[in-house]
């Protein structure tokens, strides 16, 4: 049985944080209708790569990755009858998700106050970038920039270089999990009390949780962090080392004396473990540069996979630094069925990641490929909303489904 098969979701969100939240619900069986505009489609639909390098609104696997398992409709919310359709969809739904600039849903007459009139059991989630209140409530931005506002860039990279802001919209991979937790709690509350509620989740505030100790270190101790590559106070060696081949790297992290001995033994240099210059963590810290070059001398002649396998067998945390291709070929991810192949209407067969956990009784994974723009108009408007053939054609001609 699917965990959420009795739950219906009207998803008005776009880009990543909102769509990923709704997709997680769909993975566990919720029926999700993703509402889009065909005049200004989701920006993710224009993100490269494109299938066969031919651009098109239905050809971006990046859009697909965050929208699997949903029914897709196009709807013109600038048209008064479009707003009426949206309201009818909300009547059908248990949960509404949106991440427009604060105030947009209200201006359309789709704010929680209006939608919940006569529907006190409705749950609505807004995922604003910076919060629905405060001086920056209306300031635009994407997860890419938000990651820097929170400080992820400031701490990443090397002290003598510019900040190496993590690529992509990093914070968009944080808030959806908080959002699903809050939605499940709201569903539970509704089951007990009959009452729905409005949940606001600021992506800014969600991201700050992931650097909380750094903020507290500043407020309590007045300390500002410095960029230090891959180094870590408690572990030496702790870094990424060159392996055989172009752009092949392995990560090695040695925290304990036993791991240090395991590394020395595996490098074929057991005597190193007894060398007083490296015998303690304090000494290893003092000689970190030397140790790094000893380690790299050893890794450079081998593949990253060999280094990982030898060290892990000796009880030393080590890893291939995985590229997009390594993810594709990762034996562990494959064994656990992490990527699921589905046949997209225009892209064809390709892989979607399932949620990053397995459940013993109600397993979740993408149920359908992501929709093409407006692919399920017929099903959603006619079957779900019960619109007659005649009205459907009329609405179509009036541009309500644009």
């Amino acid at each position, binding site marked *: 049985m699917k965990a959420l098969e009795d739950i219906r979701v009207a998803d008005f969100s776009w880009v990543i944080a909102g769509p990923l939240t709704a997709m997680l619900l769909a993975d566990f069986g919720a029926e999700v209708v993703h509402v889009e505009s065909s005049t200004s489609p989701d920006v993710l639909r224009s993100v490269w790569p494109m299938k066969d390098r031919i651009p098109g609104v239905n050809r971006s696997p*990046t859009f697909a990755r965050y929208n699997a398992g949903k029914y897709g409709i196009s709807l013109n919310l600038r048209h008064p009858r479009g707003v009426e359709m949206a309201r009818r969809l909300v009547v059908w739904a248990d949960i509404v998700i949106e991440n427009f600039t604060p105030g947009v849903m209200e201006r359309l007459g789709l704010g929680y106050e209006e939608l919940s009139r006569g529907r006190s059991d409705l749950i609505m989630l807004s995922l604003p970038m910076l919060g629905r209140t405060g*001086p920056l409530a209306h300031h635009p931005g994407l997860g890419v920039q938000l990651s820097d506002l929170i400080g992820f860039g400031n701490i990443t990279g090397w002290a003598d270089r510019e900040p190496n802001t993590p690529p992509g919209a990093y914070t968009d991979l944080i808030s959806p999990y908080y959002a699903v937790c809050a939605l499940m709690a709201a569903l539970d509350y509704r089951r007990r009390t009959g009452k729905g509620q409005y949940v*606001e989740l600021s992506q800014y505030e969600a991201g700050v949780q992931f650097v909380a100790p750094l903020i507290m270190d500043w407020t309590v101790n007045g300390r500002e962090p410095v960029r230090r590559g891959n180094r870590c106070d408690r572990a030496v060696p702790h870094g990424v080392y060159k392996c055989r081949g172009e752009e092949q790297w392995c990560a090695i992290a040695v925290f304990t004396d036993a791991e240090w001995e395991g590394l020395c033994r595996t490098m074929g240099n057991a005597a190193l473990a007894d060398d007083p210059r490296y015998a303690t963590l304090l000494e290893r810290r003092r000689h970190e540069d030397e140790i790094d070059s000893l380690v790299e001398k050893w890794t450079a002649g081998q593949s990253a996979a060999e280094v990982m396998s030898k060290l892990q067998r000796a009880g030393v945390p080590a890893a291939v630094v995985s590229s997009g291709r390594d993810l594709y070929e990762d034996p562990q991810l494959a064994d656990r069925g992490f990527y699921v192949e589905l046949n997209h209407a225009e892209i064809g067969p390709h892989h979607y*990641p399932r949620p990053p956990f397995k459940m013993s009784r109600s397993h979740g994974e993408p149920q359908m490929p992501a929709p093409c723009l407006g692919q399920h108009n017929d099903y959603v408007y006619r079957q779900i909303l019960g619109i007659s053939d005649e009205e459907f054609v009329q609405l179509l001609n009036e541009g309500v489904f644009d």
Partner: protein
Amino acid sequence: MLSPYRALDLTDEKGFICGKTLAELGADVIKIEPPGGDPTRNRAPFYHDTPDPEKSLYWFAYNAGKKGITLNLETADGRAVLKRLVATADFVIESFTPGYLDSLGLGYTFLSQINTGIVLTSIAPFGQSGPYRDFKTSDLVSMSLGGYVYLTGEPDRPPVRIGFPQAYLHAGLVAATGAMIAHYARQVTGQGQWVDVSIQEACAWIPLDSYNFWEFSGLLEQRHGTVRLRPETGVRLRRIWQCKDGYVDFELYGGALARAFTIPLMAWMEEEGMAPDFVRGRDWARFDYSAATGEEVDRISEAVARFFLTHTKAELWEGGIKRRCVVYPVASPREVAESAQLAARGEYWVRVEHPEFGDTIAYPGPCFRASQSPPVRLRRAPLIGEHNIEVYTELGFSGEDIVLLKEAGAI
């Protein structure tokens, strides 16, 4: 929202934020530590830089809102106590080596016999199955195998991780998500289940599209420091720009995003006489990077770089806000702590009392606000064994029993 429910949190650092999130949603979360306390209590930074297991700010940040008890699962008495606790609980969260709970006779099969509704959430480096199941991990290892490290860093130096450990935070939050979905399913079926979280899988979600580039183009996205190199065209898009006193984040987007990025920035540059002729009058909404040449983008970037260098970070942030232009500062913890936006957000900063220090510390509060549920007032993280008497008394142990359990090394 979750006030009727109890969670037992047996995790180490791999799962702290899971229990914390449930506590923020209102659950009664009991952190169970080995006698003497969890080793992560020794993690820097410390309050006033004094190393002490009761002063770790890292521990505080991710264990606030929980009660704390000590329990030694290596003793028969400790295991018997845990079984009694499980009968009173709705969630158990753990991050032991796969198979460890089973070896103690406390695996899912057994726990579900005590309490059919129990949701057991296990967090492990690679999950509970697969060829890597017994491999070890660390933040760097998980982030590397998740594919994010490969994409980050300078081209002439090794790839780097994000400078503050992130892998276990992703995994813990993912664990809370799984636990909550299982909780909802239990409301329908009455039956609990086992949630198997892989830290590697949590991390493999982070790269936005490197997997897609390989699958569709046979191209590998690489790290390019502060620029993003489009693998399909070779165009270099700068993300981080130097200004007078630091760095800002800005991207020269064309298309739908131009309205909040390139269009207002070019107008601003023009306002200040810093827009060269070749950028004037362009239709940025139609500008397409998959068609533009690298040389063209580089020329535009040079003009933008010159403009940013004439302003401070604060001027660019405030000027951008005025013009609805997305120029964000590369902020330090100080700037986050002093953010006017966060300060204006009601009770976002929670002043948590630490009576032992005669002080309060500002914590970032829960990121969700729910109309039917006032925000949970987080208490400071528990001291070692702080709630032993309270919790064990509630379970029906007498004062004498508790003394005996202590003497037996069970609590």
